[in-house]
C-alpha cells in the first residue's frame, strides 16, 4: 500500500477524518470510564489505607507528619531488632531509665536506682502508669525480662540480658525462667542479681529489650501482643492510636504519662513508609514531612534554598577487618602493618567518598564515646597515624620473608554492594596496587551472602562496620574478644581478652576506662582492623519544629522533646 494515487488520497483523508471523529468519541468514553474506575478504586483503597497526611505541621492540631524507614514487623519490645521498631518504641514506651535531650541518663519508670557489684535495685515511681491508667509495677519488669530469656520467645536480643544472673542458662533451656535473677520485692521495688559485676547496667536498662510488659495483658492478647495498636499497652509519652499496616500510624499524646518534660505534641503522624532519599526530599520540599536526611549530591540545592543543614554522627564506625584465622595471609602481622601504614583514612573520606558528614576514623572507638570525665578520645588519644610508605614497604618485605613467598597472591577483599562500599573497595584496590604493588581481588556480595562469607571466613579483608547497642565504650570494646561471635575475623589474643574482662567487670571507673585505652592501643598496634570512617548524616528540619534529635544510641530520630515554635526564630 505504498502507492497511493491522488484520488485515493482524498478518499483516504475523508475516511480518516470520519474515523478520527469516531476515535475521538471513543477517547471521550474512555476518559469518562477511567474517571469512574479511578473513583471506585479509591473507594476500595480507602478501606486498606487511611488517607492521612495533612502537611508537615498542623498548628491547630499541634501535630507533625514524619516518615518511617520500614513498617515495624511487630512491637513486642522483647523481640524487636530493627531500627524502625526502635523509633516507634522510643516514643510509646519507657524503660526504667531514659535518655534526656542531651543524651544523659535520667530517671524513667524508676525514680532512683542503685548499682552494686553483685546486683542492682530500682525503685519505681509512684506516678508510673500504663496507658489504661493502671500503675506500672516492678512485676511488669520481672515478667518482661523472664519473657525475653524464655527459649520459647526466641528473642534475638536476649544476649543483652546475660549480665543478669542465670539469664544465659535460662535462655539455653537449662533452668526454668523463674530462676532468672530478677525479683519484684513489692509493687515498686525491683531487685536484680548479676551474673558478674556489670557497672554499665544503667545503660543497658534504657534499651528496648528491657522495657516492661504487663503479664495479664500479655496473656490476654493470645500470642498477638505487639501486632496491632490495641494489642499492646503503652507507658511512654505517646500511644499508638491508629496503625494501618504498611501505610501509616497515628501517635497521640499519652494522658497518663508522668513526665511533663517530654511529649509536647498532641499528634505525630507517620504517613509515609519509605527509605528512598529522593522521595523523602520531594516530600519535604512539598511541605509534607518535617525532616529528611540529605546525601552529598543534594547539598548544593539545599544550600541554594537556604535550608538550615545540620549534621550528626549516627554512631557507626566502618573499618577494614582482617581475617586472622590460621593459614590466611592476613594472619601475618607485618602484612597488616604494611597495609595500615600505606593508607590514610582522611584521603578516603575527603577525596573519594566526599560525604560532608563523614569523619575519618582514627580508632575503633567513635568520637562520641564517653570517658570518665570527658569524651573517651580526649582522655585516651588514639595513636597518631601518618602515611609512611618507606616503613610500609619494610614491613611488606618482612611479611614476604616470613610467609616464604616470592610474590604475594591476590588478596580477597570482601565487600557489600552499596555504592559507598563499592567506591571504597575500588579506592583500596588502586591504593594498595600503587603503594605496595599488592593485587586486591574485590568480592562483591549482597547482604546475607557477605555475612555468610564473613562467618565462614572466606575473605582476607572485609569491609565491615559496627554500630552501638548501648551508650558505653564496651559496645565497641568487646568486639574482638576471642568469645565474641561478632569477631568475624577471629582475632584471638590473651592480652586483648584480659583487658576486655577488666572492661566488663571493673567497678572503679578510672581503671575500667584504662582498660578501654589499652584495647584501643592494641587494636592499632596489632592492626586488628584499619578504621575507615565514622558515618554521619546531613539533615534538614522544618524551622518551626524545635527540640528534634537524632541519636547514635537508641532511636535514630527522636521527637520526644520536639515542640512547635511559630515565632520564626
Amino acid at each position, binding site marked *: 500500500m505504498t502507492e497511493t494515487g491522488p484520488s485515493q488520497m482524498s478518499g483516504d483523508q475523508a475516511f480518516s477524518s470520519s474515523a478520527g471523529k469516531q476515535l475521538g468519541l471513543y477517547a471521550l468514553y474512555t476518559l469518562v470510564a*477511567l474517571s469512574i474506575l479511578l473513583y471506585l478504586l479509591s473507594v476500595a483503597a480507602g478501606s486498606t489505607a487511611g488517607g492521612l497526611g495533612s502537611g508537615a505541621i498542623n498548628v491547630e492540631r499541634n501535630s507533625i507528619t514524619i516518615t518511617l524507614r520500614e513498617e515495624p514487623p511487630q512491637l513486642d519490645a522483647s523481640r524487636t531488632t530493627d531500627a524502625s521498631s526502635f523509633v516507634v518504641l522510643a516514643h510509646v514506651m519507657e524503660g526504667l531509665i531514659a535518655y534526656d535531650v542531651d543524651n544523659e541518663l535520667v530517671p524513667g519508670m524508676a525514680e532512683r536506682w542503685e548499682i552494686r557489684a553483685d546486683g542492682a535495685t530500682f525503685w519505681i515511681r509512684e506516678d508510673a502508669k500504663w496507658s489504661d491508667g493502671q500503675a506500672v509495677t516492678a512485676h511488669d519488669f520481672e515478667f518482661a525480662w523472664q519473657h525475653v530469656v524464655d527459649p*520459647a520467645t526466641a528473642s534475638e536480643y536476649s544476649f543483652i540480658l546475660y549480665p543478669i544472673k542465670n539469664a544465659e542458662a535460662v535462655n539455653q533451656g537449662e533452668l526454668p525462667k523463674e530462676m532468672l535473677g530478677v525479683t519484684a520485692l513489692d509493687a515498686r521495688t525491683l531487685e536484680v542479681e548479676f551474673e558478674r559485676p556489670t557497672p554499665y547496667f544503667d545503660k543497658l536498662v534504657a534499651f528496648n529489650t528491657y522495657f516492661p510488659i504487663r503479664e495479664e495483658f500479655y496473656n490476654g492478647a493470645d500470642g498477638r501482643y505487639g501486632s496491632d495498636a490495641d494489642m499492646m499497652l503503652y507507658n511512654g509519652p505517646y500511644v499508638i492510636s491508629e496503625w494501618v499496616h504498611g*501505610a501509616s500510624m497515628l501517635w497521640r499524646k499519652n494522658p497518663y504519662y508522668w513526665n511533663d518534660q517530654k511529649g509536647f505534641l498532641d499528634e505525630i503522624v507517620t504517613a*509515609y513508609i519509605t527509605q528512598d532519599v529522593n522521595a523523602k526530599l*520531594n516530600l519535604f520540599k512539598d511541605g509534607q514531612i518535617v525532616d529528611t536526611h540529605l546525601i552529598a549530591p543534594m547539598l548544593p540545592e539545599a544550600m541554594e534554598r537556604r535550608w538550615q543543614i545540620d549534621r550528626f554522627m549516627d554512631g557507626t564506625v566502618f573499618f577494614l577487618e582482617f581475617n586472622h584465622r590460621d593459614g590466611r595471609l592476613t594472619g601475618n602481622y607485618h602484612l597488616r602493618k604494611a597495609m595500615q601504614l600505606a593508607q590514610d583514612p582522611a584521603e578516603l573520606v575527603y577525596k573519594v567518598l566526599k560525604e560532608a558528614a563523614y569523619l575519618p576514623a582514627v580508632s575503633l572507638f567513635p568520637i562520641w564515646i564517653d570517658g570518665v570525665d570527658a569524651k573517651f578520645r580526649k582522655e585516651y588519644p588514639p595513636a597518631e597515624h601518618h602515611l609512611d610508605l618507606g616503613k610500609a614497604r619494610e614491613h611488606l618485605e618482612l611479611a614476604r620473608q616470613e610467609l616464604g613467598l616470592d610474590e604475594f597472591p591476590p588478596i580477597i577483599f570482601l565487600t557489600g554492594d552499596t555504592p559507598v562500599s563499592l567506591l571504597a573497595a575500588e579506592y583500596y584496590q588502586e591504593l594498595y596496587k600503587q603503594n605496595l604493588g599488592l593485587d586486591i581481588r574485590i568480592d562483591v556480595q549482597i547482604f546475607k551472602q557477605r*555475612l555468610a562469607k564473613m562467618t565462614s571466613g572466606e575473605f582476607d579483608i572485609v569491609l565491615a562496620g559496627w*554500630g552501638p547497642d548501648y551508650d558505653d565504650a564496651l559496645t565497641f570494646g568487646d568486639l574482638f574478644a576471642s568469645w565474641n561471635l*561478632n569477631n*568475624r575475623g577471629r582475632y584471638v589474643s590473651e592480652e586483648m581478652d584480659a583487658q576486655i574482662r577488666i572492661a566488663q567487670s571493673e567497678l572503679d571507673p578510672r581503671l575500667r576506662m584504662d582498660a578501654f585505652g589499652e584495647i584501643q592501643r592494641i587494636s592499632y598496634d596489632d592492626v586488628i582492623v584499619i578504621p575507615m570512617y565514622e558515618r554521619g548524616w546531613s539533615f534538614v528540619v522544618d524551622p518551626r519544629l524545635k527540640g528534634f534529635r537524632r541519636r547514635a544510641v537508641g532511636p535514630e530520630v527522636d521527637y520526644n522533646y520536639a515542640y512547635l515554635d511559630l515565632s520564626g526564630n
Partner: protein
Amino acid sequence: MWLYILKRLIQGVITVWFIATATFFAMHNVPGDPLLNDRAMTAAIRSNVEAKYGLDKHLTTQYVIYLSNLVRGDFGISFTQENREVNDIIREHFPVSAILGILAVMFAAAGGVLWGALTALYRNRMPDYIIMFLVILGISVPSFVVAALSQLALVNFNSFAGRTVLPVAGWGTIYHMIVPAMVLGLGTMAYLTRLMRSSMLEIISSDFVRTAKAKGLPPARIFTRHQLRNAILPVVTVLGPAIAAITTGGFVVELVFAIPGLGRYFVQAVQQLDYTVIMGTTVFYGAFLVFMVIVVDVIYGLIDPRVRLK
C-alpha cells in the same frame, strides 16, 4: 468449554507446584540464611529461633511440611517481619498493588488502543511521527527515571500552584493514584500502541475492509466494526500477562511513591533471604500469572469466533 477450563486449571496447578518446588530448593541452596544478621547469634539463641521456624529439621522434611501447609493455604511466618504471617502480608499489601496495577493496565490499554488506532489512521503523517517518537521514549526510558522525574515535576507543579494539588507520595485517595498509575502503565502503553498500530495497518489493507468500502458502508462503521474489532485481538492476548506483570512489577514505582504494595516486600524478601515470604509471594504471583493466562485464553474464545475452546 467447561472441560477445557478444567483441563487448563489442572495444568495450572501442576505449574504452580513446579514453581513452588523449584523456588524452594533454589532458595535453600543460596549461600547464607535468613537468620544471619549484623549481630551474630549465640548458638543457644540461634537454636531457639531455628526451632521456632522449623529450620532445625532436615530439608526434605521441611519441604514436606511446606507442601502440606501450602495445600492448606498457609504460607507460614515471615523471618524478617517476625510475628507477621505471610498470608497477612499478601492480604494487606496485594490489594494495593492490584489497584495500582489494574489502573495502570486500564490506562495502558485505553491509551494503547487509542494511540495505536490514531497512528494507523494517520500513518506516515505528522500525528504518527510524533506519537511513534513518544512511544520509543516510553519503551526505552526505565520506569525509575520516569517515576523520579514525574515526582520532581509534581513538587515543582505544587510549589508553582502554591498548594498541594497532587500528593508527591503516599497512598489512600484518588489523587495519590493518578500519577503512579500513569508512570507504571507507561511502558506497557507504549508497547501496546506499537502492537495496535501494526495490527491495524495489517487490517486496513485486508480484503474484507476493501469489500466493506466497496459496498459503500459509512467510514465510521467500517472503522469500528471491521478494523478496530479485528485489530484489537492481539492487544487482548497480551493484556493478561501484562496485568500480571504490571501488578507484580511495580516495585520501583511503589518505592519511589512510598506506596505500601506487595512488590516492595517481594524484593526485600529476596535480599534478606526471607524464605517464607519469598515462597509465599513467588507461589502467589506464579498462580496469579497462570490464572490470568487461562482467563485470557477463555476471553479470546469469546471475542474471536474462529477460536474454539476444546
